[in-house]
Each structure stands twice: as structure tokens, then as C-alpha cells.
């Protein structure tokens, strides 16, 4: 059930990035937005706009910024990076137990079942099985009962469209199963973002600002045919136009 409870509030976030040559880029300027409980939120922004940095800041693992990040409670903000970080020398279950030492077996099994890895508990991930590794990372995060799961373009490595949509639907399903956890997905892929979201935040590049907020009214239950619907294509085109206006120089978003 969607609620109006704000779980995360970002207030006037400003951050500069200095590269190796000393060149300074303003990544975010006065960036503000709120995330509501159990509302699947997508941040759509082009390549190199600082999505990863933003999620690191929200997860509490990156410092050196101005502004405020307010969380509704003390639970963790679990980060899933754009490159796989599950441990290849551990099985699925061992991977989850490694970070969830204080979590009951029941909760661990619930996470495994929820991500669709039932029967694969003793399998170890192959480095290039991106979908499998993403599921492990999702289970690893969910077993910790996080306030929010921050997903950083983790589907970017998956080229097979069918697998991508399966995973997007899985993310939405997980958002429903874990109703006290909220999913925030940052991507540069407009179709993926729009397909998965309840709310879509359009972010500009250098400086990063929220230029538009979209409340997505597609049905709760979705399938791949949605992307061919007139309603979807219309909304996608209007977002693209808005996006082009704001990011004239940096049109690197995937359609």
C-alpha cells in the first residue's frame, strides 16, 4: 500500500567534483526532492550526471557535500552499484549471511524466495551472470530490512531485453512484498525508468537539478506489452522533449 509518509528528504544538496586535472564541475546545485514510503521512484538522468554519486550520498557512504539528507528512521539505505559486487567465492546464502549476520534464517530464506533464487541457495555466481548477481545483491539488501534500496543503473550490463523486463517487474514485485521498504532506481534508460516507476524524477546534468516530477498512472500490474501502448509512447515522447529542452548539450539518455 502506498502511503504519504516521507521516508527520505533531500534538501538543497550541492556538491562539486574535482577531476584529476583540477577541473571543477558542479554536480548538484540546490537539488531537492522527497521519496515516499513504498513508492517506486526513478531518477532519470544522462550519463555522467552524478547519479552514482547521488546514490552514494543517500546511502551515507559518500561525504563532502552541502545540504541535508533526512531519513524517517535509522534503518540502513542499501546501495546496489552499477557493477556487480556479490562475492564469487561465496554461495547465494553465504553472500546474504555475510552482511546479514544478525538476521534470522527465516528472513534470509524469505529474501531468497522473493528475488526468485529458491533452489539456488548453494550456487556461487559467475562473474558475468549480471542478472543472477543482481538478484543476490537484492536479496542481500532486503534481508537487512532497509529503509530504502538504492539501485544504481544495475540493469545497464544486461543487454537481453526479456531479462531486463523480467528484472524490472521483479523490482516492482519486491517493492510490493517488502512494503516497509522503498525502492529508488537511478537510470539513464527512459523506457526502463518509465516502465518501472510510480514516480519519475527528471534530473539535468551539471548542475544536477530536478527539472520535472512525473506521477506515473500506469496500472499497478504491468507487463512488457505496456511499452507498446499509446499511453506509454505518448508519455515517453513528452518526457523526451522536456529532457531535450533541459539537456540540450548532453543528450545521452537511452530511449
Amino acid at each position: 500500500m502506498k502511503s504519504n509518509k516521507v521516508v527520505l528528504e533531500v534538501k538543497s544538496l550541492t556538491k562539486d567534483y574535482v577531476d584529476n586535472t583540477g577541473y571543477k564541475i558542479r554536480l548538484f546545485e540546490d537539488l531537492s526532492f522527497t521519496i515516499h514510503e513504498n513508492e517506486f521512484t526513478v531518477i532519470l538522468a544522462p550519463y555522467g550526471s552524478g547519479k552514482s554519486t547521488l546514490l552514494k550520498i543517500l546511502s551515507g557512504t559518500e561525504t563532502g557535500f552541502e545540504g541535508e539528507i533526512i531519513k524517517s528512521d535509522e534503518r540502513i539505505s542499501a546501495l546496489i552499484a552499477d557493477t556487480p559486487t556479490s562475492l564469487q567465492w561465496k554461495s547465494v546464502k553465504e553472500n546474504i549471511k555475510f552482511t546479514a549476520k544478525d538476521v534470522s534464517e527465516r528472513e534470509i530464506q524469505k529474501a531468497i524466495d522473493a528475488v526468485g533464487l529458491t533452489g539456488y541457495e548453494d550456487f556461487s555466481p559467475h562473474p558475468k551472470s549480471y542478472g543472477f548477481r543482481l538478484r543476490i545483491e537484492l536479496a542481500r539488501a532486503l534481508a537487512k530490512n532497509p529503509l530504502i534500496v538504492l539501485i544504481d543503473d544495475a540493469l545497464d550490463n544486461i543487454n537481453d531485453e526479456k531479462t531486463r523486463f523480467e528484472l524490472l517487474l521483479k523490482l516492482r514485485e519486491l517493492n510490493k512484498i517488502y512494503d516497509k521498504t522503498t525502492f529508488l532506481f537511478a537510470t539513464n534508460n527512459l523506457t526502463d525508468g518509465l516502465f518501472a516507476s510510480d514516480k519519475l524524477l527528471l534530473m539535468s546534468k551539471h548542475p544536477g537539478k530536478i527539472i520535472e516530477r512525473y506521477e506515473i498512472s500506469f496500472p499497478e500490474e504491468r507487463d512488457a506489452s505496456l511499452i507498446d501502448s499509446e499511453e506509454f509512447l505518448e508519455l515517453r515522447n513528452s518526457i523526451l522533449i522536456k529532457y531535450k529542452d533541459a539537456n540540450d548539450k548532453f543528450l545521452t539518455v537511452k530511449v
Partner: protein
Amino acid sequence: MTDYSGYKSFAKIAAWFTFIYIILFQFILPPNQILPSPASMIDSLGTLFSEYYFISAIGLTSLLVVLIPILGFLCCYVTRYYSPKLFLTYDLSATLLFSFRFFSYVFLMLFMIYWFGSSWIAELVFLMLVAGLEQKIFLASEVRKINKDYFYTLKSLGLTEKEIIRDVVSKLLKPYVFEKIHILFLLSWGWALLYEMISGSYGMGALMLQALKYNDISILTLSIVIMIVVIYVSGLLFKLIEYKIISWIPDEIK
């Protein structure tokens, strides 16, 4: 991960080389003072064992060289429990030493021979220092290539930096550390032989020096051939151990 291709290629080249050598020096070329015929080498086998004490010489040198990777590995990996930062630190001294370190090793070797004379313990300490420093420089440079996302994601799940270094980064580095220890193991043979040749009283280095003094080319060539076989077999064994320990496929380090 474990790659035997280098050993396979070497075996092929060595087999061809041996075949050509036998044909040339046994059947075509006349006896000479540069390289001995295979038959005279076989005749020298008895002398090698009875007069040159080959078993004790190769035993001592092999023991010293085999101890290096084991001790080097233990040194590196034990520090990660007590001081994860030290395990990874890339300090200025390592950078400064980097370019000139081989001269430093030769200088250190000469110093130790001069100071401690012909002591196998001194040789062991010398090999340990060289291998330890090489290992440290390598670890510090390789750790920069580890995907930083491991830190961010695991930290966000509540792990401390110490736990991540101890239980994840050290493990991620293990295949590359093994590769380096393998190279160090092969290089250590060179350093050990040089040390023993200069100190001149024990081990394979001294044996070869003695054979050179007596101009006993058959013994010299035979000991070199046996040493190559020992290095090859022990290197292969090392690879097998690596294969047993690292059964998982690591991420590619760019």
C-alpha cells in the same frame, strides 16, 4: 583462473630443444669444449652425486626457495588481521624504491654476504626481504584496481572498512597475489643462485661455481638441466596448489 599455458609452451619448446640438442651434439657435431654430448652428461651423473654432493646442494637451495612463497604469503595475509591499513598501504618509500629496487637488492645481497659470510639463514633472510618488498609493492599497486563499488555497497550494508579489507579485498586480490608469488618464486631461484655463487660455499650456486672452476662442462650443463626440471616441476606444483585454493572465477581487474 589458473593458467598452465606458459608451462605447456615451455614443455613443447624444451622437448624440441632437447631433440635438436641430442641430434646435433651426439651424432653430428664433433666433441667440443663448449657444450657436452648427451652421452658424456649421462656419464657425469655419478660424479655429480658422489663428488659434488648434488642432493644436499639442490635440497638446500630448493628448501630456501620453496619457503619464500609460503612465508611471503603468510606475512602478507597475516597482516590483514592485525592491520588492514598496513596490508594495503602504498607508501612513498615503496614508490621511491620502485625504480632502483633491483640495485638495492644487489647491494643488500653483497652486504649480507660480507657481514654474515656463508650462512644459509642470511640467504633466507635476504630472499624473504626481497620477496616481502616485492609483494608489498605489488599489493599496494593492485589494490587500486579493485572495484570501489565493493566498498560502497558493503559499507551501506553495515560492514566496517576493516571488515571489507580483511574479508573481501584481501580475497579479491588473492588470485593476483598468487600470480605474483608464482613469479617471485621463479625469480627467487635466480636470486638464490646468485647469492650462493657469490658466497661460494653451499647450495646449487656453489656447486655450479665449483664445476666452472674445474672447467667441468658436463657437470655444469647437467646441473643446469636438472635445475630447470626442478624449477619446472615445482612451478607446476605451485600452480596446482593455486588451482586448489582459488576455485572461483575472479572479476577482471582492468
